[in-house]
């Protein structure tokens, strides 16, 4: 008996029993299916946005004032929203990125494994999960209530959103810089600040820039923080981001989406296409920067 089963076992190099193989196959199919399930709506959204938006996009569309919602598609454009997005996102970036990099420098170069540093790192990660609407309500309560709506307020809200993201991604990049580089600089008599700014930061710069670009792309697409800080509803561009209500692409899309008029909706698609194009370009530039300039993260 034993000899028989021994013989059987030795000779049995076929695939595992039918049902085991079947289950395995089904599992693989399900995994592929989940990917397909994701591609389909993504494809639909992108195709729809491009199809409906492309026909309305033009230089005049991107620069003209916003017409009353009822007017058909070929009137006016989204100029004020484009300008607003650029102003507000630029302001937010200028505030959040340097502060985020400094925060990451604190965490990696000075804080080390201390309790405070780990606590701040933890809080920073938790902060990335705070919904963007909360940032809007926050800046409303802190600033708008006292100083009114402005592009600056919007920039504060977006900045709060970007800060923890920049901290986390910059921290990861600083961690990747080999310690022997720091030692080499110390050995030449550089102070810690010098070592950090002249050797560590330049070495990590590619990855940091790339991470910041992704944070910018995310901020550019946010609507909720802006509802409570810049108000929207503008028809003509506000070139002063520091005072007065303003508008931005996402906000404009939001208001156009709820309009029953086809003209407004068409402008909404055009704005959506513009917004996606901006986010897309930023994403691609981020990847190029990573590939070309970031030495240690590969």
């Amino acid at each position: 008996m034993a000899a028989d089963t021994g013989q059987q076992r030795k000779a049995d190099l076929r695939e595992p029993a039918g049902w085991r193989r079947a289950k395995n196959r089904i599992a693989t199919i399900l995994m592929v299916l989940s990917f397909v399930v994701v591609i389909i709506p993504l494809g639909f959204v992108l195709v729809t946005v491009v199809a409906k938006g492309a026909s309305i996009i033009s230089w005049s569309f991107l620069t003209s004032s916003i017409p009353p919602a009822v007017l058909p598609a070929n009137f006016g454009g989204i100029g004020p929203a484009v300008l607003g997005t650029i102003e507000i996102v630029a302001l937010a970036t200028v505030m959040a990125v340097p502060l985020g990099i400094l925060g990451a420098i604190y965490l990696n170069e000075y804080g080390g494994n201390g309790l405070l540093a780990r606590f701040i790192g933890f809080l920073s990660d938790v902060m990335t999960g705070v919904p963007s609407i909360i940032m809007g309500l926050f800046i409303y309560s802190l600033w708008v209530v006292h100083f009114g709506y402005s592009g600056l307020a919007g920039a504060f809200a977006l900045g709060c959103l970007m800060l923890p993201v920049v901290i986390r991604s910059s921290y990861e990049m600083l961690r990747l810089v080999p310690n022997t580089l720091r030692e080499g600089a110390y050995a030449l008599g550089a102070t810690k600040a010098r070592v950090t700014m002249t050797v560590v930061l330049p070495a990590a710069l590619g990855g940091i820039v790339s991470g910041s670009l992704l944070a910018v792309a995310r901020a550019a697409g946010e609507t909720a923080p802006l509802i409570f800080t810049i108000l929207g509803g503008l028809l003509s561009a506000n070139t002063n981001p520091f005072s007065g209500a303003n508008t931005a692409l996402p906000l404009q899309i939001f208001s156009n989406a709820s309009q029953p008029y086809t003209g407004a909706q068409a402008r909404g698609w055009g704005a959506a296409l513009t917004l996606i194009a901006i986010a897309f370009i930023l994403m691609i530039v981020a990847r190029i920067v990573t590939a070309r300039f970031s030495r240690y993260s590969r």
Partner: protein
Amino acid sequence: MEEPQQTVTNLPRPASASQPPRTQLDGPVGETIFDVRNVSIWYGAFKAVTDVSLAIHENEITAFIGSSGSGKTTVLRSFNRMNDLVPGARVDGEMNYRGQALYGGGVSPTAVRRRIGMVFQKPNPFPKSIYDNVAYGPRINGERNKAKLNEIVERSLRQAALWDEVKNRLNTSGLSLSGGQAQRLCIARTIAVEPDVVLMDEPASALDPIATGKIEDLMRELKSQYTIIIVTHNMQQATRVSDRTAFFSVLTEGDSDTRTGVLVEYGPTEQIFQDPTDPRTQAYVTGRMG
């Protein structure tokens, strides 16, 4: 932009480079650069090195040899206060540099490191151009003059025997050099600030034999201007380049696992290798141990 600290005790200037190179030790011994007396080094509660006493002399190459964990690198790094970067590191005992207490109050580590340079085991060029690598030290010392920097860079690269190979591509990245070239770049970078002492932590261990030979030739040439202390695992290298040798070994504490480094013997290289006093030295240099 910070100037060199005013609060630092004035560390003496090195002797001029016009002294004749010394090939034997039977002439007058140079000034004592480092005077180490009963120094023990701790990392937190762990005693890495115990009761080391020796004197390093000017314009000599001193080699630290011994098995792994015997504290050679720890002692080396204490000369330029690199151990300060390790949290919990502590130095007990007297360590004097040209008569001044190296770990005394009022001494700034950054000033120390500008006088005492270091070359590391694995070449660590900065991800900058070759030029910027060498110019880094002078620049942080406040040198802004372009012409002066050019001169310093060329001089240092020549001294490091690298100039001819890179003179036409000073703007290319330091990372593009081969291992041996990168290490010579690091040496050029170190001597660009004209330090008094150059510490080398196994400078050739990551290099192939030909590159190693070039580094050793370099050391012999630099000896006339600098005092060099080198940690090496390679006994032949020690005999080839050094004037004095210090042999370190490991002291195991009874039943605990702790290994503490101890200086066993220190003397002229010839004597250490051919006529050692201590049996442990004898065992090591004849290859019976470590």
